[in-house]
Structures are given as structure tokens and as C-alpha cells.
């Protein structure tokens, strides 16, 4: 659970299908260099093959429920040094909540690394930690009390894995000339209405596809599908944001055509989505005038991460005390380069500028793909926008 926002990691569902548990759990045997054989039962999201022969980096959120009965060849006494010459056979059924790095989101038959490198620790009641011997060092003698520790360099970013998958998504968008946007805001800012009206206003001139993120229900995807546009619903369960892997899996389903516009509606949340790159060209923040105009400074991370801010529901301005210039001022404190448009998804006010901005973005993405440009950096220059 996230103790900041009160949300937690839940079971992710994509269009109702459980992403981490689908089909029959299947068992694999892992054979370790020392001859230990583990039978694991895995439950996978999609029916995909794992080729464990390759070296690959498999992310395993891996919660071994280890019902782990190991037979030590001999009885041993933990109060003293002892021989852990394990011929142990554990049949541990575990539920891998795994996410894997697919080098290409379209191809599931590939490299992930199930390097269960024998590093399971056996907790002993007397609190001496006795680890399984590393491969090739069978029968190592452990001497409790001798606590040789050393420090090793890691130097890796916590978001390494998310960012690697985001880069894969970004390469897919680049190769197909797709303009992808990540729409972020608090709940109730009018994101879904904005998407529906945008798709209607585009009138099929540009194929638009939507990935909808919500904790539960497919109500938003259904609203999008009613416009005729393809939509995939990602239910994050208790999760409070979309991550790059969820988007990769949604893209598998969506299979967006070349030259299209992919609109990713993030979970309504002004905090969590800020840090997670999904592979989009831009994050677009939506702030409606029924909210506080100082939100950009109260939730700076999200506005700092956005390239464009849409001030929505401007048709309601006569009825509320929202200071548009004030809101823009706050946003530019945390993101001096942010573009701003005033719109109303309900009345269509400001839509000419918004649609023109989208069309320029799509055009640019198509041109880049046509000349074979490589995937852009995480944050592209913002296409020209109308200043509010």
C-alpha cells in the first residue's frame, strides 16, 4: 500500500482479463547447477511461452509462498557449525506476480531470466541465517557468528525497469509514426468527456485509439467505444497509476495502426502518475476550473512533468472563483515551458487550437517514422501551441 495516497498494488486487469493470472497455472522445473530441481507452479497473465534457456532479466515481483519442505540429508544442530550438504528437493509452489521485460511488446516468446541462483535463504529459529550453498560449492560449512559482510556497488535507478519498458513502447510508437499522449489529472477534471469530444471532433481524420486506466470497471472504455474508437480498459485494482508494463500489455491488445493518435487516460490522481514514463510523447495535465487554481503548486510533481496544461470547463468560469491567469502562473513556476490551452469539452470552446495541436503532433510523428528517425527522448520539444 502507498501510505501517501492510501492506495496499493492490486491485481491488474486488462479488459477484464486478469493480467497476472490467466489460464491454467503451469509448472516448470528448474534445474540448478548443483543438481537441485525445483518445481514451480506459475500463473501467467497471457498465454506466452517462456524460454528459460536464454539469459534474460525477469522482473519477478516474486512472492514465494514456499511451503518448502527440505530434506537435509542429516540432522543438524544449529548451535554449531554444520554441514548443509543439501540434496534438497523443494517443491515450492509460488505465485509469481511477474512482470517481464519484453524487448518488443508484440513478441512474447523471449528472454527472461529465471535465474533462481540458489539464493534462497533458510531462516532458522535461532536467527542464524544459513544460506544455500552457491552453485559449485556444495557442502559448504557455515559457521554462525562469523559475519563477513561486504559492500558492492549497484548504481541503478529505481525506475530502471519501468523506463526500459517505456522505451520499448516509445520505439513502437516511433516505428509506426504514432503520436501518444499521457493524460493526467485529478478525478473529475473531465478527461473522459474530453477524449470522447476529441474523437468526435477529429471525425475519423486521424485514427484515434484509447487506453483507459481506472481502478475498476470498464465504464470509461465503454464510453470511448460508443464513439467507434477502439479502447482498452486497464484496471489497476488497488494501484494508483499506470506503469509502462500495463501500457505495453494494453498495446498488445490495441495494436494501434501506423500514423494514429494513442490517448492514454491515466488513473485520476495528481500525485502517483508523475514519475512513471509510459513511452508517451507528452504528458498533458488537465485542470478544470471547478478545482482550486493553486493545484499546480500544491501538486508540483505532476505539473512539472507535463508539457501541456488544458484548463478545462472554461464555460463554467462565470460561476466559479477560479483565476485562470493565477493557475497558469503557478504552473509556470514548476514548469516554465508548459503550454496552456483554455478549453471546454462540453461546449467545444478552444477545441480548434487543441485539435490543431494534435494534428501537428500526429503529422510530426508520421514524418519522423517515414524518414526512419529513431525513438525520441522521453520529453520531446512541444509542438507549437497557442498561448493562453
Amino acid at each position, binding site marked *: 500500500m502507498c*501510505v501517501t495516497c492510501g492506495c496499493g498494488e492490486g491485481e491488474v486487469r486488462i479488459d477484464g482479463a486478469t493480467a497476472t493470472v490467466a489460464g491454467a497455472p503451469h509448472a516448470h522445473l528448474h534445474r540448478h547447477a548443483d543438481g537441485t530441481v525445483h518445481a514451480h507452479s506459475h500463473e501467467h497473465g497471457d498465454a506466452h511461452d517462456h524460454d528459460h534457456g536464454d539469459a534474460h532479466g525477469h522482473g519477478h515481483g516474486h512472492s514465494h509462498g514456499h511451503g518448502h519442505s527440505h530434506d537435509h540429508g542429516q540432522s543438524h544442530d544449529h548451535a554449531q557449525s554444520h554441514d548443509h550438504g543439501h540434496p534438497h528437493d523443494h517443491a515450492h509452489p509460488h505465485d509469481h506476480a511477474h512482470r517481464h521485460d519484453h524487448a518488443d511488446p508484440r513478441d512474447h516468446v523471449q528472454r527472461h531470466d529465471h535465474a533462481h541462483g540458489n539464493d534462497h535463504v533458510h531462516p532458522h529459529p535461532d536467527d542464524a541465517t544459513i544460506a544455500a550453498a552457491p552453485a559449485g560449492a556444495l557442502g559448504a560449512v557455515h559457521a554462525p557468528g562469523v559475519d563477513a559482510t561486504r559492500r558492492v556497488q549497484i548504481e*541503478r535507478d529505481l525506475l530502471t525497469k519501468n523506463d526500459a519498458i517505456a522505451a520499448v513502447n516509445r520505439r513502437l510508437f516511433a516505428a509506426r509514426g504514432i503520436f501518444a499522449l499521457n493524460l493526467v489529472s485529478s478525478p473529475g477534471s473531465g478527461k473522459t468527456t474530453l477524449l470522447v469530444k476529441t474523437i468526435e471532433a477529429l471525425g475519423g481524420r486521424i485514427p484515434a485509439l484509447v487506453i483507459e486506466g481506472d481502478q475498476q470497471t470498464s465504464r470509461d472504455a465503454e464510453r470511448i467505444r460508443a464513439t467507434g474508437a477502439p479502447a482498452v480498459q486497464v484496471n489497476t485494482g488497488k494501484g494508483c497509476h499506470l506503469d509502462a508494463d500495463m501500457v505495453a500489455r494494453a498495446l498488445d491488445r490495441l495494436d494501434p495502426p501506423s500514423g494514429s493518435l494513442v490517448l492514454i487516460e491515466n488513473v485520476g490522481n495528481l500525485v502517483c502518475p508523475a514519475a512513471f514514463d509510459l513511452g508517451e510523447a507528452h504528458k498533458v495535465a488537465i485542470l478544470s476550473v471547478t478545482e482550486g487554481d493553486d493545484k499546480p503548486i500544491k501538486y508540483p510533481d505532476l505539473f512539472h512533468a507535463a508539457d501541456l496544461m488544458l484548463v478545462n470547463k472554461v464555460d463554467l468560469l462565470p460561476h466559479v472563483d477560479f483565476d485562470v491567469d493565477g493557475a497558469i502562473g503557478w504552473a509556470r513556476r514548476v514548469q516554465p515551458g508548459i503550454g496552456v490551452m483554455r478549453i471546454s469539452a462540453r461546449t467545444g470552446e478552444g477545441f480548434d487550437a487543441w485539435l490543431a495541436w494534435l494534428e501537428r503532433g500526429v503529422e510530426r510523428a508520421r514524418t519522423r517514422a517515414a524518414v526512419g528517425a529513431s525513438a525520441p527522448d522521453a520529453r520531446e520539444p512541444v509542438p507549437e501551441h497557442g498561448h493562453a
Partner: protein
Amino acid sequence: MHEMSLAEGMLQLVEDGARQHSASAVKAVWLEVGALSHVEVDALRFCFDAVTRGTVAHGARLEIVATPGAAWCMPCGERVALARLGDACPRCAGHQLQVVEGEDLRVREIEIA
């Protein structure tokens, strides 16, 4: 911010490191947290304890290495300190600031046994 996802990412890096060095246990983790990073340290500690339970990093000490934020002030043409997003340039009091440092969340080192 979703500290749980971040803690899971951290555990993965720690497990990778432990495996690579054939470690039997991870005793401590040094995490660099930039002043402008998207994380609440207390929440991250809580989540780290939760996700490491029963893993090679069970009970590991989490050492936070706080690093300062910095920005490039466009009007001043200089690099300035930035304690948090939205703060003004300490020289010109303007907000034309481009963050250049302090957004990192990185596992620097681990202590293994």
C-alpha cells in the same frame, strides 16, 4: 507517489545485485534520494520493509543518502540550488528554472553477507 511500486523496483535491483554476487543475505541498502524526486521517504521505508519480508533483503537496513536539487536559471545563466519544485531562484527570485539535478532515486550500494 506510488512508493510501493518504487519499493518493488528497489527490491528487484537489490535481488539482482545479491544474486550477481552470490550473497546469502542483504544487510543494508544505500539509496540516493534527490530532493526533487517523486518520493516520500517515510512511505518508502514502510513499503521497503513490507516488500523485503521473506526475501534475501529481509530485515535489511535502508540508508537514505539525500542529495540536493539544482536548477539552471535561464535569466541568470547560472546553476542555482533548488530545495523544492516551485521555489524561486535564490539570485533573481524568478522561476525560469530548469531542473538539472536532484530527481534521482538510485540504489548506490548494498552490503551483503
